[in-house]
């Protein structure tokens, strides 16, 4: 350790930011896809992250499956539950307008949160992984295997999502629907099937984000509320509906939160995300990369 080279220290904060950002990215992309396709802010999306983390814990730590198998199962179950929430809870009230959908999602968030507490109890949980190794530069531990794992998984998922969206018919239908709902319908895209696909994808990604959060830290019942706030910030920064915009937004939020510690008291770390969005909303309401008009 010792008094390291300052530049290396900065680099380390960048690594932290990348980890925070990539996990956030997975959570935010799905959030903004749902926002585009069903046109509302899905507050329950944060609970999908928590759900993924708890299911991962269930399969990995409680049942004892290998991590990869447990993760796949958890992601799949989260995806199915997300789809079910779309079918059972949100679809029937589509006509009520975005605000009622938003409040329904708040209701759903409470239901999921309460269910997690009832089933798993209020004690925090954690994934116990083999001891990680870390790589050092100039004597400073720069990045650990766990962190590399998280970043790689997140980037691979993001690239896979990109390929899916650009190279497959279903993916292109999703994109078409995200950008022009009515147009997509006119062009004969089966909007309800595409919407279902979006919910499955979004919830699955949220589940993955939850597992990664669990691997990195602990799994606790309030994590859904904590993460949705940061997801909102990242989504706004990237311009709510633009899929690639929010990816960049998530990375920027992650970096700004972790880099802020250099200058600000760490206690303000989470507030930094909100200061960023307030600034963005005041200066450029459509987000940095969004082409969406405000309102």
């Amino acid at each position, binding site marked *: *350790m*010792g*008094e*390291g080279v300052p530049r290396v*220290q900065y680099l*380390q*904060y960048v*690594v*932290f930011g990348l*980890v*925070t950002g990539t*996990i956030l990215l997975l959570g935010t992309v799905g959030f903004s896809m749902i926002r585009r396709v069903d046109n509302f802010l899905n507050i329950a999306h944060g609970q999908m992250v928590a759900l993924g983390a708890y299911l991962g814990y269930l399969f990995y730590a409680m049942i004892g499956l290998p991590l990869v198998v447990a993760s796949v199962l958890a992601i799949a179950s989260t995806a199915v539950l997300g789809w079910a929430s779309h079918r059972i809870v949100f679809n029937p009230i589509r006509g009520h307008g975005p605000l009622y959908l938003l409040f329904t999602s708040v209701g759903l968030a409470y239901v999921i949160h309460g269910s997690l*507490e009832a089933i798993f*109890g*209020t*004690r*925090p*949980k*954690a994934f*116990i992984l083999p*001891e*990680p190794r*870390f790589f*050092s530069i100039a004597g400073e*531990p720069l990045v*650990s295997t*766990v*962190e590399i794992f998280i970043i790689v998984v997140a980037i691979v998922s993001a690239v896979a999502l990109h390929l899916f969206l650009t190279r497959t018919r279903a993916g292109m239908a999703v994109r078409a629907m995200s950008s022009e709902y009515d147009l997509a319908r006119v062009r004969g895209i089966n909007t309800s099937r595409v919407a279902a696909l979006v919910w499955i994808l979004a919830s699955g990604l949220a589940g993955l984000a939850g597992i990664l*959060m669990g691997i*990195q*830290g*602990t799994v*606790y*019942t*309030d*994590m859904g509320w*904590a*993460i949705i706030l940061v997801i909102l910030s990242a989504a706004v920064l990237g311009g709510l509906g633009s899929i690639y915009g929010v990816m960049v937004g998530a990375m920027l939020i992650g970096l700004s939160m*972790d880099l802020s*510690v250099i200058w600000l*008291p*760490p*206690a*303000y*770390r*989470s507030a930094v995300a909100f200061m960023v969005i307030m600034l963005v909303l005041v200066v450029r309401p459509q987000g940095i990369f969004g082409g969406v008009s405000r309102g």
Partner: protein
Amino acid sequence: MKRRREFNLFLILMLVLALAILAGCGGGGATTTTAAPGTETTAAGNESTASTGAPSGGDIPIGILTSYTGEMGAFGVPWFNAAKMAADEVNAAGGVLGKQIKLYTEDDRSSVEEGIKGARKLIGANGVVAIHGPISDILLAIWPIAKENKVMATSPAAGTTKLDETGGDYEFRTVPSDSFDGKVAALVLWENGYKEIGMIYENDEGRQSISAAVRKEFEALGGKIVVDVPFTPRQPTYSAELKKVASANPQAVWLGSGQESGAVLLKDAKQRGYNWKWMVSSDLAVPEMFDLVGKDTLEGVLTEMPSAETSTPEFQAWAKRFQELFNAEPTGGFQSNSYDAIIVMALAMEKGGAATGEAINQNYRDVSNPPGEKVFTFKDGVAALKAGKDIDYEGVSGPLDFDAHGNVTGSYVSMIGKDGKWTQLKFYPASTWEQ
């Protein structure tokens, strides 16, 4: 006009509320005997003692107001269980003044507002003589209501320094004030040979007052605080905060936090390869921490907590009973403190000859402070009292000697993580803190 209809609706609403209140007042003096079926306290069984019906004739209602959900949600059940164990033992020994203790419980959701509502419900609808269980902020909020209604308010864990000089009247706590906790932590660190430490702690009331005490005491001992980092609870990662600590290069690091954040932080540190000597606050001195972060991470980690000497036969006997009842480690997590609070209450009522909050308030010092015959269980205490002797209850969380403000000067143990368990390192009797 519609406006008038709205107004009428408003009046009806107010009227309904008023009627509800009148009904409430009317019912105030009545003694109803509709206890919820199947929830009676039984001395032997493992059955629950919580109930929310009205008190039945011969029972002494005591309220357990604690956090089953929210930030402190992890503590509610253990505290309740420990209190229940105490109540069961009291009842098995013939009860207090021939009456059985009956526990009613409410969730305060770790929130001041819910705490107030829960306390009002316990006092108003259950007629409890004492409320036990809340953390500092909530204890402070319910204390005036309790005092007004001659109901004792106690806590197994409210360490707030705000009560150091003000509590004592219808308020006592079986945990020493945070200022002691900090003293112990500083002393343990110093005695283990660390001269330059870093501090990292959650930015909340409890940890802040402990950290202030650590700082003050450690510097008084001649040590140096090289870095001081408060952090926001419930973040997914604390890498950046740890980096701050690392750049100051401390010999050891004191961590004050709850389980969630503490686990994230310890794991993060491990992942980053920071092999500091850790000393963690007593919130983390629970067996569950080993499940959370793995036993390797906690190997050699120091902690301290208020406790009686754990090697005594009395403590061992209690620990065994606890283990049998709940299949859980009795140490840590303020379970012993919760147990003791109920025993002191029962003894105080026995001594006062009345099952009331007033009796508890007047006698809790008498039964737990010297002089008097040292007793370790309720049964022995009652026997001694009946024999006309003065008693001094020695609890499982310490000697339980209360000052004028309801504070205990606790005895402590320092512990170290070893092979997936917290093991006692050294016992610090209460006399350590005199002067």
